[in-house]
């Protein structure tokens, strides 16, 4: 219950939030611009992690692996858009959910077929292992600090991409009126492929970065996908700003809830029960947060379609 513990947990929350943002930004762009619910977004996360693990193992360089993982996820994303997703834009959401769920199964079993069922090895490079001592004697892993840094850089880059470039202008236009930008002569199908590949690439980057910290295995994307959906619903579907705020909110609330709820219940309950109740409530906390936010703002914090 010390201040250092609180600082460390806040950092952990922000770190989780930045990684969720990488996932959620792609998901929310795809929904905002194309109106598509993509359950297979977690598969790009997995593809990024596997490609990074494979390339890192063969080249010995984590950075090359990271680039390859992001590129592989973006390429697979573009391919999936051209072959499958393209046929789904005019279908109802239920068809989209069914088709992208099928993609999850195909990707999972395909990955198992190629790489085997045992988890792959991917570790951070030696120059990113270890920890730094922050003011107040808080020890924090360098790798996690780096993740926060990457998250900030990507957020700024996305901000510039969307608000300052021609591509960003088209994306914003696509969010507000899909038919109109097609009528104005923008090559809409190319725009869709680019946006989809961008989202997949970001998911792949998140998978690769987190995979080095966790485990690279089949089905690793699905738990993150659920959190990413919570993030975009809280933030307002289609809004990048909302995704950033929602991701940080979910990251911090989830982390602090897991630590402080059991401690809170221990104040007036026997320890083993308090741990059980606290842990159970902590697991629900972000969904409670989502329900409360939706009760006051049914379209999320920043809705792209008002």
């Amino acid at each position, binding site marked *: 219950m010390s201040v250092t513990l609180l600082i460390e947990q806040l950092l952990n929350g922000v770190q989780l939030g930045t990684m969720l943002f990488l996932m959620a930004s792609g998901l929310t762009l795809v929904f905002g611009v194309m109106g598509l619910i993509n359950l297979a977004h977690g598969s790009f996360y997995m593809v990024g992690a596997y490609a990074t693990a494979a390339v890192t193992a063969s080249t010995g360089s984590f950075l090359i692996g990271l680039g390859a993982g992001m590129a592989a996820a973006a390429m697979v994303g573009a391919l999936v858009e051209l072959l499958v997703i393209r046929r789904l834009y005019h279908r109802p959401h239920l068809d989209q959910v069914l088709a992208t769920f099928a993609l999850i199964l195909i990707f999972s079993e395909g990955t198992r077929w190629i790489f085997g069922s045992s988890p792959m090895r991917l570790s951070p490079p030696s120059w990113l292992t270890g920890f730094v001592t922050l003011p107040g004697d808080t020890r924090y892993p360098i790798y996690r600090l780096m993740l926060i840094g990457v998250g900030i850089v990507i957020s700024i880059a996305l901000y510039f991409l969307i608000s300052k470039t021609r591509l960003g202008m088209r994306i914003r236009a696509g969010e507000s009126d899909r038919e109109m930008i097609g009528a104005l002569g923008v090559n809409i199908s190319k725009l869709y492929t680019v946006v989809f590949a961008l989202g997949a690439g970001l998911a792949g980057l998140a998978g690769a970065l987190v995979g080095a910290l966790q485990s690279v295995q089949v089905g690793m994307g699905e738990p993150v996908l659920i959190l990413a959906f919570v993030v975009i619903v809280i933030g307002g579907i289609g809004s990048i700003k909302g995704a950033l705020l929602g991701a940080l909110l979910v990251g911090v609330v989830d982390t602090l809830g897991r630590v402080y709820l059991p401690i809170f219940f221990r104040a007036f309950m026997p320890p083993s029960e308090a741990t059980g109740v606290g*842990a*159970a409530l902590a697991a629900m906390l972000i969904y409670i947060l989502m329900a409360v936010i939706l009760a006051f703002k049914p379209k999320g914090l920043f809705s792209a379609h008002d």
Partner: protein
Amino acid sequence: MKMISRFGLGLLLSSSLVTAHADDVKIGMITTLSGGGSHLGVDVRDGFMLALEQSGRDDVEVLIQDDANRPDLARSLANEFMQRDEVDILTGIIWSNLAMAVVPTVTRQGTFYLSPNAGPSDLAGRMCHENYFNVAYQNDNLHGAMGAYMREEGYERPIIMAPNYPAGTDALAGFKHLYEGEVVGELYTQMGQTDYAAEIAQIRDSDADSLFFFLPGGMGISFMKQWESSGVDMPIFGAAFSFDEILIKAVGSAAIGARNTSLWAYDLENEANDRFVEGFQAAYDRMPTLYAAQGYDTANLILSALETAHPDDKDAFREALRAADFDSVRGEFRFGPNQHPIQDIYVREVVEGDDGEPTNRLIGVAIEDIQDVYYEQCQM
């Protein structure tokens, strides 16, 4: 027309004559071969098939199906095996929740079930059955043995951690039962959790002198990698489920130094084990895990019982299984009154192997002749 029907009848008769070997034995195996954690099922299957191959018997037929870690699917596969294929013996289930969905119906209908992995407490206690044999362990065994070992080694302030689901709470209860002392803290994580930063910070913040955890599969990989870079300096202990040969290779150097309890080790010295480890490496070109050893023992137990009786003679076959007259790869092996093993539990340490990859090395015995605590509730 008459000709044809007579001809048809003749075919039918002759085909039934060809296939009906009255003394052939059919074994149905339901195990997890796809999805996350499927390396457990793959190893149980490979160990089992290796034992059959080494025996050279051709009158035993094994039908294998993948349950994809889904209780409903496992249940319908079991019904299919019993009704359509009329198998004599069922085996193979990895996960306790699947075992609970399948085993009671199977044994009630008079089919034998031999568990090569899952050992939920209910099946050892109040729901035990004369047709149910566990050839692996009761779920508490390895955790309890680690509790006894840590007490023996003089660790006084352990902090303990497990996911918040039945096998997780059972694991911590089993540990505390044989540790017989106060623990400084209990942490419950979420099932399938991948980020342990919050827990690691709490462990650092506590004044514990050691950490015991039960995080099977991918959860353990994630935890250990994050533990290594956290800078916390504390010895770690666990059950073999987080330290099988496949998992520690995925974890890498972070696993080095961890001690874990197991009912088997590949460097355990006995004749049966030499034959098993050499045979397994030759056949599959990889190191066996404890799951493979359990599959191998399960098959050898069945084969030993088949020497004296056919499963059609249920009472005689059951007696033959109870005798457990086979050479187990884990040394001594016998059944308690609830048909669960009474066995030694070993301690292994993860070290750097000759090839630079982490591997387990046997360092001693955690507890001898451990028996589960549920046998008294078993009315057979």
